[in-house]
């Protein structure tokens, strides 16, 4: 190279002029440089000007500037991108719900039960799970509002105002010394702080009314009749051996539902030979009825008569059941005998629907059976609940007040319409509504204040057991608001107006105790002490009647109002997750319907009424048109309908007359009167001839008889032959037969505790008798021997029967020789510690059908965890709901007694089974769904092009396809009014997304991942801490939400994991195992503790060898 020689003493100018440099420049840079000294050429000038114009213009095109204030010092324990958990609480139905909130970068994104709380132990409900949507609802009010002065229209326009203006209005009214013309109206109050304020207000003469449409009026009145005071019952499910529910749903639709469900599940452990027996007598099909061992439908009207009959039957127990009694009589005799046999270990639970007299009678029966103080405890109530709600709202309506402050609730919609609460409110001079939405009630009020959401504020509350929960704010108020207690304190002119100080003062705690309580979410050992009760004299037993014994005569009809499993009393109408959550039994979304039993339907059909068509229901002068839906298991003559629908001012999800969003469902509140609050007798509904689309996620159209028969065949067994079918989707057996089985093949409960003996394990495993023919160890009544290759001929089928059910799995295996060359091998899961491609973790899941009661909390939990979109009613109708986890519900005939007319129900949660021979994987042309080394069936979203072939080939139909774009804020919650909101408003919803889970674009398949993000998080954490992942460290979202612990998840390769233990349970079976897809999700067969006296068939014979060894069946 001919470079100029540079000397240190040559200055730059000299250098520039050296010919060598010029040459080098010319050589290296060409003519462009040469142009510079002579000024610009025209072309060059154009180039530069063009470029600068373009570049200058581009300065306008840049990303929006964002102000980022990085932490100068990272707050303690805050790792960006790592979720944190905080305890908190909010109120539901007058009971504080202990919460554990997951927060991501300062925003709560998921709510679960607080696992430390002694009452609920981490159980949660679908309501709790779904309420995370509330703070981010774009339709929450953002400023206080005031009715337009000159506007006299019935539903006046409200103008936005500021807090100062509202305070100027409210403070003089509430801080006056005489408040006798001021009325307060609220729902049940669980907050001690609010109760304290209430007392102070009442001391100054104010009236405070408590009204909620779903309340405990009857129960408390019954308690007053029986014991002379209003007491709250606590059902000790863990202690109970015999449970009788009367028109009650204690394990689901109950303020203490999750805790009851948990307690109930603890008594449902057939492996430890510990099983309670539950009888459910009810008019509507509830989840309690579905979970019960015996269910009998009795109309709500006849329930009192049933209680009378029960009292008589308890008197008449002889210790023996007459086998010749008709079925329903026999059932009553069995209940009575069981209750008498288990004095002090039984309980009778009466539902709120029944009148006070029935409650009192049930108290008397429980008392007589010695259950009080053992299985049923009572505590005093927080003060507010002792009011009679329906009387309170009547008093409010007739009160003639000058000022009214309505704290939450929506009485204009929920109160008996005859009271005309809207007129009352409008007639009061000064009205303030405090609530999140401009709902029906708010629209009648002069002022609307928007308090903070409970997750944004300091709150407190009494949990069901009376313990005090402390709720810390999880996020700063999104809209510059204050909580109710802060507002009231300010307006009352109190000194303390700061939320935290109020709550702390109420709690009376300080220092470490306070910090600990805030951390825990509740004050330790603050549960209410049970009080002892003595039965007051004069409790009258209702007269025994025959109404419940006899077949329905086809003429009397009753209409029963039930809380909605989706919108409760209407308060969750704007919650799209809950609106799209299928009802556990009807599987109906986005609607309520008039539920009729098949027999009732046959009668009504004569007058032209058809399912999925509108029928007019008349009560008094009010008429409401409702779509009809057949609900097997409903009491004949009992029509059920859910309240809470047909809101006209809920918002863009639930219906809003102002923005033109049609109401969801039909408002049935006009039919309710204070007298007939829960049920009423009605005339036959009349047809309208209008058809109505109901968005059902299961059995979405009238299934023909071919389909119905097949469902029966597949569900439990071959119905005609009363013979078990190996491909039965649901396996079930009686506790008696399972005990007999366990006597033959005891479960080694120590199994799995001996680490490091993997080799032994294998042998141990193989030799365990429970695993021979490994599958239907327990099955249905008159179960034909599990098919075993060696025994095929012995069963006398001969070759002529060679193509019957018994043989076909083998036939199928021929197609799959490559996968399964062991002749007749049916072992679905075989643990090979040192073989196979998977050396690491082997993730798997089990679901115990004995424990699952179908409450759907897992479904919402999954939805929240995995950013699952809502598709809206039309799309659900079309069959495009996106839930990754669904709960299949099957109705079946009673397996144990052909006389029983009432259908049995089984719930089966189904999500991706993560098959080892996954059928979806082979058919995907672009390899977008592939197997991980840990056995997960991974879905690669950005590889997927959406041929949907995988969905077709999935036998479990768990894959979900994004038919439209649900990714952005506008479409994520695709509900009726979504297009009527600004993008900016909708974008608020993005705040609740779980950032650990990808949001799927249009045209992509998605499905359950076993919460792979949680698996990865646990792996990373374990690796950072140089340790193995604990055997039960990872919880999937569904598992976490499950109050009954039905779901187990973990590493099958770890013998200590619960899931592995469940896998070794003889009740375990794989659904559709004959397809040889080898699913990683297994089910544990359902065991029903059927009363032997009610069993027509003895399914103990099903257990191999039992009949031979015990020729005389043991007396029950």
């Amino acid at each position, binding site marked *: 190279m001919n470079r100029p020689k540079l000397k240190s003493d040559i200055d730059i100018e000299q250098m520039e002029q050296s010919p060598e440099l010029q040459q080098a420049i010319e050589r290296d840079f060409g003519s462009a440089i040469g142009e510079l000294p002579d000024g610009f050429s025209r072309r060059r000038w154009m180039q530069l000007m063009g470029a600068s114009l373009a570049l200058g213009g581009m300065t306008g095109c840049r990303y929006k500037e964002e102000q980022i204030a990085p932490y100068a010092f990272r707050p303690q324990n805050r790792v960006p991108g790592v979720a944190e958990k905080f305890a908190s609480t909010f109120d539901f139905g007058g009971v504080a719900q202990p919460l554990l909130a997951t927060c991501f970068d300062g925003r709560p994104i998921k709510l679960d039960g607080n696992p430390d709380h002694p009452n609920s132990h981490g159980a949660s409900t679908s309501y709790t799970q779904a309420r995370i949507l509330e703070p981010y609802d774009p339709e929450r009010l953002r400023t206080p509002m005031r009715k337009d002065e000159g506007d006299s229209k019935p539903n006046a326009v409200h103008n936005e105002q500021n807090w100062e203006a509202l305070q100027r209005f409210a403070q003089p009214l509430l801080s006056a010394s005489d408040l006798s013309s001021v009325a307060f109206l609220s729902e049940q109050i669980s907050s001690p702080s609010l109760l304290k304020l209430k007392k102070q207000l009442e001391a100054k003469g104010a009236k405070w009314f408590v009204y909620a449409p779903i309340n405990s009026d009857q129960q408390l009145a019954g308690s007053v009749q029986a014991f002379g005071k209003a007491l709250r019952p606590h059902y000790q499910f863990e202690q109970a051996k015999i449970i009788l529910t009367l028109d009650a749903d204690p394990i689901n639709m109950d303020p203490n539902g999750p805790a009851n469900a948990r307690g109930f599940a603890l008594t449902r452990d057939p492996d430890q030979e510990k099983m309670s027996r539950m009888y459910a007598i009810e008019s509507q099909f509830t989840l309690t009825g579905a979970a019960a061992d015996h269910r009998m439908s009795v109309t709500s009207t006849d329930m009192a008569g049933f209680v009378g009959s029960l009292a008589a039957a308890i008197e008449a127990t002889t210790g023996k059941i007459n086998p010749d009694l008709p079925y329903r009589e026999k059932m009553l005799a069995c209940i009575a005998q069981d209750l008498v046999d288990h004095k002090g270990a039984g309980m009778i639970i009466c539902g709120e629907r029944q009148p006070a007299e029935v409650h009192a009678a049930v108290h008397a029966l429980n008392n007589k059976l010695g259950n009080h103080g053992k299985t049923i405890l009572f505590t005093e109530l927080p003060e507010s609940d002792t009011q009679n709600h329906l009387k309170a709202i009547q008093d409010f309506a007739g009160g003639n007040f000058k000022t009214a402050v309505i704290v939450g609730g929506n009485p204009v919609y929920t109160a008996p319409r005859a009271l005309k609460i809207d007129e009352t409110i409008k007639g009061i001079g000064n009205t303030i509504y405090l609530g999140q939405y401009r709902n029906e009630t708010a629209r009648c009020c002069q002022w609307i204040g928007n308090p903070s959401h409970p997750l944004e504020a300091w709150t407190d509350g009494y949990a069901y057991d009376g313990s005090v929960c402390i709720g810390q704010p999880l996020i700063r108020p999104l809209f510059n608001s204050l909580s109710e207690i802060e507002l009231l304190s300010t307006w009352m002119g109190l000194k303390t107006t700061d939320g935290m100080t109020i709550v702390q003062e109420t709690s009376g705690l300080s220092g470490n105790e306070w910090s600990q309580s805030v951390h825990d979410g509740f004050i330790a050992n603050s549960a209410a002490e049970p009080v002892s009760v003595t039965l007051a004299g004069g409790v009258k037993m209702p007269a025994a009647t025959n109404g419940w014994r006899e077949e329905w005569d086809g003429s009397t009809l009753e209409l029963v109002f039930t809380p909605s499993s989706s919108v409760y009393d209407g308060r969750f109408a704007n919650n799209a997750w809950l609106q799209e959550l299928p009802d556990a039994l009807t599987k109906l979304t986005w609607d309520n319907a008039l539920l009729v039993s098949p027999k009732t339907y046959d009668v009504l059909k004569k007058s032209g009424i058809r399912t999925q068509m509108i029928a007019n229901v008349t009560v008094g002068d009010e008429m409401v048109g409702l779509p009809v839906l057949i609900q097997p298991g409903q009491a004949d003559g009992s029509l059920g309908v859910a309240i809470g629908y047909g809101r006209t001012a809920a918002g863009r999800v639930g219906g809003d007359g102002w923005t033109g969003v049609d109401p969801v469902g039909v408002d049935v509140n006009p039919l309710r009167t204070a007298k007939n609050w829960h049920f009423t007798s009605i005339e036959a509904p009349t047809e309208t001839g209008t058809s109505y689309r109901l968005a059902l996620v299961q059995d979405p159209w009238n299934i023909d008889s071919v389909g119905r028969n097949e469902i029966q065949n597949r569900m439990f067994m071959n119905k005609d032959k009363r013979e078990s079918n190996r491909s039965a989707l649901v396996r079930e057996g009686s506790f008696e037969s399972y005990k007999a089985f366990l006597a033959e093949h005891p479960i080694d409960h120590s199994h799995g505790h001996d680490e490091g003996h993997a080799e032994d394990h294998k042998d141990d495993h193989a030799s365990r008798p429970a695993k021979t023919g490994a599958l239907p160890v327990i099955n249905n009544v008159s179960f034909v021997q599990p098919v075993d290759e060696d025994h095929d001929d012995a069963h006398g089928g001969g070759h002529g029967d060679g193509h019957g059910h018994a043989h076909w799995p083998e036939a199928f295996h021929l197609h799959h020789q490559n996968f399964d060359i062991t002749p007749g091998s049916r072992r679905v899961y075989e643990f090979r510690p040192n073989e196979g491609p998977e050396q690491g973790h082997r993730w798997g899941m089990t679901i115990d059908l004995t424990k699952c009661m179908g409450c759907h909390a897992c479904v919402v939990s999954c939805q929240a965890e995995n950013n699952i979109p809502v598709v809206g009613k039309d799309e659900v109708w079309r069959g495009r709901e996106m839930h990754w986890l669904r709960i299949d519900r099957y109705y079946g005939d009673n397996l144990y007694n052909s006389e029983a007319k009432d259908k049995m129900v089984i719930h089966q949660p189904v999500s991706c089974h993560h098959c080892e021979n996954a059928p979806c994987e082979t058919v995907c042309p672009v390899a977008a769904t592939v197997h991980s080394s840990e056995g997960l069936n991974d879905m690669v979203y950005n590889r997927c092009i959406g041929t949907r072939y995988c*969905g077709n080939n999935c036998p479990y139909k768990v894959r979900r396809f994004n038919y439209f774009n649900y990714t952005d804020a506008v479409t994520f919650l695709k509900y009726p009014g979504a297009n009527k909101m600004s993008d900016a408003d909708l974008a608020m919803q993005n705040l609740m997304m779980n950032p650990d889970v990808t949001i799927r674009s249009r045209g992509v398949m998605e499905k359950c991942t076993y919460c792979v993000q949680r698996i990865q998080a646990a792996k990373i954490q374990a690796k950072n801490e140089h340790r193995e992942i604990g055997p039960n460290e990872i919880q999937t979202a569904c598992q976490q939400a499950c109050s009954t612990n039905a779901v187990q998840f973990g590493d099958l390769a770890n013998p200590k994991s619960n899931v592995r233990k469940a896998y070794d349970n003889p009740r375990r079976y794989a659904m559709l195992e004959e397809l040889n897809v080898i699913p990683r999700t297994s089910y544990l067969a359902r065991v029903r503790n059927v009363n032997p006296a009610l069993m027509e068939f003895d399914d103990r014979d099903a257990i191999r060898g039992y009949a031979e060894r015990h020729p005389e069946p043991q007396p029950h």
Partner: protein
Amino acid sequence: MATTVEPILDNTFDDPDHRSPLVLGNMDYADVTDKVCSIWEADKAPKVWWLVLIMAISMLMMFGACISHLLMKGVGVWGNNNPAYWGWPIVNFVFWVGIGHAGTLISAILFLFRQNWRTSINRAAEAMTIFAVICAGTYPGVHIGRVWVFYWLFPVPSEHLAMWPNFRSPLLWDVFAVSTYFTVSLLFWYMGMVPDIATYRDRAKTKIRKLAYGLLSLGWTGSARGWHRYEAAYVILAALATPLVLSVHTIVSFDFAVSQVPGWHTTIFPPYFVAGAIFSGFAMVVTLLVPARKIYGLQNLITIRHLENMNKIIMATGLMVGTAYGIEFFISWYSGVPPERFAFYNRAFGNYWWAYWIMVTCNVFIPQLFWFKFFRTNTIAMVVICICVNIGMWFERFVITVTSLCRDYLPSSWHYFHPTEIDIMMFIGSFGLFTTLFLLFCRYLPIIAISEVKSIMPIKGDEH
């Protein structure tokens, strides 16, 4: 001349004395050329042509509008749902691919079997094949969820994807099968047309036509050497195309047969699909040629004998399809697999019974009329029957696709399939595409293989 040819139009009798003529009306070579060229040389196309073309183009525009709507919104505009992930689009795809079978079968297999009567109909049938496959190809193209990455289906070596497609997937086989079939059919059709295009070129009067046909005729001079090469190439292509006729629908049937959906997972599908495809393809050829020969006065070239032969094939394949329906039921019973048994029982007696019985009526019962010579030789009757066959064959695909998916293993997921307006409009629209292409073909390309027809005409002076 004209003394030896029977002056009757009925050439459907088989006289052992001599072969029935395949060209009637005392036509000589020049007449044939004039006749076929007259379609194109006419100053004005027949009014019917214009009428149908306008309708077809309207339908085609609707097709385009539907596809744009689909691309903008997502595949949710169709009625597909959770159990029935495949609905009408796949039904239509299989339907059109099936239609696209007759052409290549006629040109290749009948050629190899020296069935001389093929010469009058093979050109139109091949064209129909090409257009049907184009219609078919549209559906899987837009059927996928993310259309903009459709090319991921092909083994494109690209950095972006960093991997090959999944060669185990029948859908991938499908991509290869259909594209190969289309390519070979197109080549075969075009190559066979070269001498006739050269005729058009030679007779062209305007410069544009001269240029266009000149380019398309690839410099064909009609030299002996040219003919020699042509014949050899034709045989080779025919031999190549023959297995493709069988393979393409076999592989399309694998989309179903390889899966484990009850009602799909059957080994009979490949032959059954191929028979069905020939069945529907021939029916479509008859449906198209009967009006075409009438409009263009080609009764002497496409004679009743041609049509009758096709009707015989339709009846034969219809019987095969009917047998397959029966065997499916037998096997499902014989297998003893309960979901399989249910799938077939449900087809016939479940909530989709109407579709099943439309299929059986149209595909099995109605073609039995072809046992009677009247129906084989009456043009109106045969068109009605052939339209029924195509309705039936569409329903066959519907029954297979939708009824199987709607009720598979888990009753909890059973769902009914409701088509949307877009489904219906796109199906109609695909007929618009097909008809438009076919009409343009009729107008601008020789619809009868002039040179081939001449090869089977009795040479003058050698009538006996």
